[in-house]
């Protein structure tokens, strides 16, 4: 409906296509440039996935450690929050200076945006376990590691996954931002290129690709969540 209105208005007022292309023009651009779009998309996805997986592993380890050592939690938590107040856009050029135009600075930007939501959600999840349940398991003689595996980790999974979903959608964006600042390939690089040539339809096509990618990644995490937390379906009912 919205797309139709857009198409109609653009045609009615004969808007210049470099200013606002009609949806049909975007679709044409998408189809025509698909091979090259696909090439850049692969690079962006690659960066985003490396950064995403790396932040999840790192966040998992750090949150686990922080949860078992309260002192560490108190020391690191404020630092984590502060790190989030530093705008990424302002730090990213530094990465460029330090690490050049390669893969590393992009992955770092992705890690920077993904890490925080995962750590915080996981920490929060680990803290929701009923202390009486922990006491019961302790009274049965369960070790701390076993308690973590049997009780804390599964209890944290639903919260952990909400953080993961946020991080997944951020990860593509993070990679694109990384590429804006300096790259030789990738959707962000392709965007800057298209913008300079006023290929607005192509710019929109790239936006479509980014959106679809983020949604797809979100969906994958959601499917993973359903597979790994089958019991939550019953809890919603009761």
């Amino acid at each position, binding site marked *: 409906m919205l797309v139709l209105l857009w198409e109609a208005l653009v045609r009615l007022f004969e808007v210049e296509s470099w200013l606002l292309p009609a949806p049909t023009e975007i679709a044409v651009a998408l189809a025509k440039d698909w091979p090259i779009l696909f090439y850049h998309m692969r690079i962006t996805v690659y960066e985003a996935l490396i950064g995403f997986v790396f932040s999840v592993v790192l966040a998992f380890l750090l949150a686990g450690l922080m949860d078992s050592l309260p002192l560490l939690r108190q020391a690191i938590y404020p630092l984590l929050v502060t790190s989030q107040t530093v705008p990424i856009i302002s730090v990213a050029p530094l990465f460029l200076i330090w690490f050049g135009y390669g893969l590393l600075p992009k992955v770092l930007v992705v890690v920077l945006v993904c890490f925080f939501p995962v750590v915080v959600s996981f920490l929060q999840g680990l803290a929701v376990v009923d202390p009486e349940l922990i006491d*019961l398991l302790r*009274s049965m003689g369960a070790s701390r590691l076993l308690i973590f595996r049997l*009780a804390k980790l599964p209890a944290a999974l639903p919260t952990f996954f909400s953080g993961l979903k946020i991080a997944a959608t951020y990860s593509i964006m993070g990679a694109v931002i990384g590429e804006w600042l300096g790259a030789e390939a990738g959707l962000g690089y392709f965007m800057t290129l298209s913008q300079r040539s006023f290929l607005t339809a192509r710019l929109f096509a790239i936006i479509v690709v980014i959106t679809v990618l983020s949604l797809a990644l979100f969906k994958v995490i959601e499917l993973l969540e359903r597979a790994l937390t089958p*019991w939550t379906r019953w809890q919603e009912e009761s």
Partner: protein
Amino acid sequence: MFKLEVRDLVKNYGDLETLAGINLKLSEGEFVAIVGPSGCGKSTLFNIISGLHQPDSGQVYIDGQDVTGHTGRVSYMHQKDLLLPWKTILDNVCLPLVIKGANWREARDRAAPYFSAFGLAGFEQHYPAQLSGGMRQRAALLRTYLFASDIMLLDEPFGALDAITRRQLQLWLLATLERYRTSVLLITHDVEEAILLSDRIYILTDRPAKVKEEIIVPLARPRSSDMLTSMDFIALKRRLLDLL
């Protein structure tokens, strides 16, 4: 020798005196209830018996052995079922066996035969959220039984259930315990529950808790719901209510 003996247990939390020298005895196969005003430290007592907390002084003996401050010998059951929502009923019940070092397959083989006696047959692969409150408590009881079949500590096990389900479970517990000679220590503030289920009743004072009175329940076994209206039952109920 007693199955379980608690000697001169004292416990203070800071300035708060909680237990002021508790003495309890539980014989083999005996069912003993502890009744007292709420907040009088009954749960603290169980935390100490199960080894989670250290008493300031006093000892806990099981089969004549000093187990004060050692976990892993007796387990207790709560008002809350405390089943793991992410495990099936079968795996939940297996938990104590796995914690003791059995692998999951062995544990499942050992736990499965008890399901019909505990009224859980057919629900092995269900998740706790799919079961009624009464069934969840039965599963929690089976888990407690599988942890240590000789002694069970029950901390208001039916306290969160509605009156009808509670009575059903009390009668069911009576019948089930006829088959398994388990020593049971039950915390409750339901006087009828204490009389119906137990051989002996300890009445505790307000905080700091001490044993105020020890009463032997004169009802014969096996017990039935008819006894709830017998003269002996009512006389004992009146006496208990006066003491509380």
